[in-house]
């Protein structure tokens, strides 16, 4: 059994966007705060901190999850991806990100990192997904600007493009 007493710190180690990271955390530190304040990656946004808005959504071992509902210590050994992992290189956008730009899938951008991480997980797991699956994944997110229509269009356009790429590669 591993024990971490209140107010003591422990070194937490996991894979973040393909690279090993380590930093100290108290037991009560949320994973969202650990990633933003200890590691310094601020792409993961924090809205409600009770699991409702989806702004903090990241991928944990391939599945989208709320960073504000995990303790940093629970992430020990996990494989974690945040929005910073999406860009294929400095100044370039992924297919999904480019589709968001093209379709005006964001306005203020506060909800965007979380939504991108949910949709990126959907695209990897089910490239054949359609409107229903996209809307189902978006039900876990709140966007106060767009009205969601452009987000759905962006996701469907990215899915289309990715399916065409896969086809032309075989």
């Amino acid at each position, binding site marked *: *059994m*591993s*024990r*971490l*007493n*209140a*107010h003591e710190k422990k070194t937490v180690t996991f894979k973040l966007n393909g690279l090993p990271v380590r930093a100290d955390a*108290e*037991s*009560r530190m*949320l994973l969202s*705060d650990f990633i933003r304040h200890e590691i310094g990656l601020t792409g993961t946004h924090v809205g409600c*901190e*009770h*699991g409702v808005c*989806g702004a903090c*959504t990241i991928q*944990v071992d391939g*599945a*989208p*999850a*709320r960073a*504000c*509902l*995990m*303790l940093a*210590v*629970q992430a020990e050994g996990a494989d974690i991806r945040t929005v910073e992992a999406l860009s294929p290189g400095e100044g370039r956008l992924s297919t999904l990100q480019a589709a968001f730009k093209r379709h005006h899938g964001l306005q203020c951008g506060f909800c965007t990192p979380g939504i991108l991480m*949910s949709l990126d997980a*959907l695209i990897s797991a089910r490239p054949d997904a359609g409107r229903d699956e996209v809307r*189902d*994944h978006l*039900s*876990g997110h709140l966007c106060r600007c767009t009205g969601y229509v452009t987000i759905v269009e962006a996701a469907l356009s990215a899915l289309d493009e990715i399916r065409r790429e896969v086809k032309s590669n075989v």
Partner: protein
Amino acid sequence: MKPAAFDYLQAATLDEALDALHEAGGDARVIAGGQSLVPMLNMRLARPAVLVDIMRIEALQKIERSGGDILIGAGVRQAKLEAWPDLVDRLPLVAMALPWLGHVQTRARGTVCGSLAHADPSAELPLSLIALRGSVHLRTKRKKRTVSAEDFFLGMMATDLAEGEMIEAVSFPARADGTGYGFNEIGRRHGDFAITAVAAVMTEHSASIAIAGVDDRPRRFDVPLPGNSGLDDALNEIAWDLNARDDIHASARYRRELVRRLGRRTIEEAAACLA
């Protein structure tokens, strides 16, 4: 919106978890998927002195057949059950209910047994367990016991769990031949907690419904077969029998109407899957 300090214990075995719960007594809480507990910690509605994390206990990760039941360990996440290849065949009612339980993002972490322990009156899994007349397997350092769903849920977020006790697993009775199932839910948006959810179980000779979101816990009733003229009267009596309340989401009157209409529709759907 940050949790108060607590000791965090990550148990590697069930015995370690039970020892820790025993020692800490009423100050300890199990943490499973964290999808209900961490919001309460963040809002400081819960301030346990000790959290016992059970998610790395190998023995609690199983989904297996045990006689006519499907036994699901306390470490099994909702997404894992949803992806279980036999789900639709063995537990068709649970297969219908799971997509309504929160969102993809919360099912990836939340556990089946955590939802039962949390005992929200509108939750889908407690409703399914009541409808199927399943049971929960509880355990302390000293004692094991099995409690029927009917006796487990006591009220609004209140269960029969005692101090130092945890859920080890849950038994959902598997689909029996000649049985039909139905499930419906009305909420503000898909993935929100239900205003009212209904599960129905039908055989050629019997019908029952279970209702969540109206009373302070899910409740099950035997009802006349849908071809029988007494069904609407029975549903009306059930609607008045449940202690429907007004809240910001819906009035008590609206909830009673949902019991009547959603009740009938769900029973008819269960009957249709019998035929």
